[in-house]
């Protein structure tokens, strides 16, 4: 089977990645903040979400209080495995400030 991601970084979203096959540990929580399971992430890949950013926007995995600092690596690994590529071929989600949740009253007084 042809690789999903070409050497130039081109990804045809209609390439066959095989069917979604349920696995025994699909109900394992991966994103603890937003309570997203491994199965949900794997299913999202088959629905066309091929990047960490897309899965994040589609399921909210990595969008909670820790902003993916805990689960980011696992989410990437699951997507890569589903696509049959190395995790190194996928970009992580963008890190966004602030580093930790900050009250408006505190952030608003920073000039």
């Amino acid at each position, binding site marked *: 089977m*042809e690789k999903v*991601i*070409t050497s*130039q*970084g*081109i*990804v*045809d*979203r*209609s*390439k066959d990645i095989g069917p979604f096959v349920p696995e025994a540990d699909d109900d394992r929580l991966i994103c603890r903040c937003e309570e997203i399971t491994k199965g949900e992430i794997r299913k999202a890949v088959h*629905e*066309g*979400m*091929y*990047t960490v*950013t*897309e899965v994040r*926007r*589609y399921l*909210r995995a990595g*969008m*909670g*209080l820790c*902003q993916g600092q805990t689960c980011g690596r696992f989410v990437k690994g699951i997507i890569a495995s589903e696509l049959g590529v190395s995790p190194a071929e996928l*970009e992580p989600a*963008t890190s*966004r*400030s*602030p580093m930790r*949740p*900050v*009250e*408006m*009253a505190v*952030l*608003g*007084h*920073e*000039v």
Partner: protein
Amino acid sequence: MTININEKTADVIIVGAGIIGSASAYYLAQKGLSVIVLEGSKNIGDGGSSRNGGGVRQSGRDPRELPLVMWGIENLWPTLSEELGVDVEYTQKGNLRLGKTEAHLKTLKGLADRAIACGLDVRMIDGDEVRAINPYLSEEVIGASWCPTDGHANPLTATLGYYKKARELGVRFITGEKVVQIKKIKGQVRQIITENNVYESDKVLVAAGYQSRKILSTVGIDVPMEALKMSCLVTEAEPKMFDQMLGTAEADFYGHQSKHGSFVFGGSTGFEGMDKDNGRPISSSLGASCTCRGIMKYFPALSQAKIVRSWSGWIDRCADLVPVISPVEEVPGLYIACAFTGHGFGIAPAAAYNIAEMIADGKTTIDISALRYDRFKPKL
């Protein structure tokens, strides 16, 4: 459905997989046309489609685009989640555009009067009535325009929902495929040249946000617009406070509380358009702090809400602040949909539906001739 992944031709090729490109692909596929969508970045919906305040509003809009957005709110938004099989979190609970000074109220009244003339149900209300609708607003608010049929939705799931549904209908989306040139053959659009490949079609829709300008220049067409960076912030999930979409006369902030519970607020610093540019929309250190100060004046109760992230994106700001949705007769086969000027999300379903009609049928449900590409004239 069998899809030949080596095929480089289609009935229509769309440049840009934002919500306009993805939704147009969906409506074209519904009409039985084959479609390829070429996206330069790695992600679907990477530009303004995923970077906006989620407003689905009519109030405050230009009369030239009002009929289109009003039609979409009447006919498409209410059933969109069902249609796409993805929760787009559409909430139609009204829009308050807030004022704190007499000058603000004058601005808001001018906008409201213009919309009323187009048949929109919008009216001016005083501070007490504002607080009857949203009791969390401070006494600083002395009035607002109120449009009960406005609302908000989730731009992330709406954009990806259109993509998912279009993909199911056989539309081919190809990411990392940056278009560098459109080439005419015998005067007719024919080749779409990317950094690595050549695609062919007799019909091309350019829906690439600000990047459209460079692509269109390869066939001698220009849309006067600039890239303007704006930023937003998101709070942690809070107990449910209110359902309305909010904006202000001063544009110091806008936003809503999402279904998830977090507040999404956009704001400006006054330095928009003057940022240092390293090629990516990076949040400035001033943006989130400034927006927090703006929000707290309107919502003192939110001062302890925690900000979990901030982000920014580019607006494709048109010279006259309304989009270009148009066929280009002087380049047969070329269609444009860009320059939505930061309010392209709410209008996207209606725009895309009419774009599909424009391309497939040559006529549209709503008259969009005021949005033509050749409307720009110098001031003297």
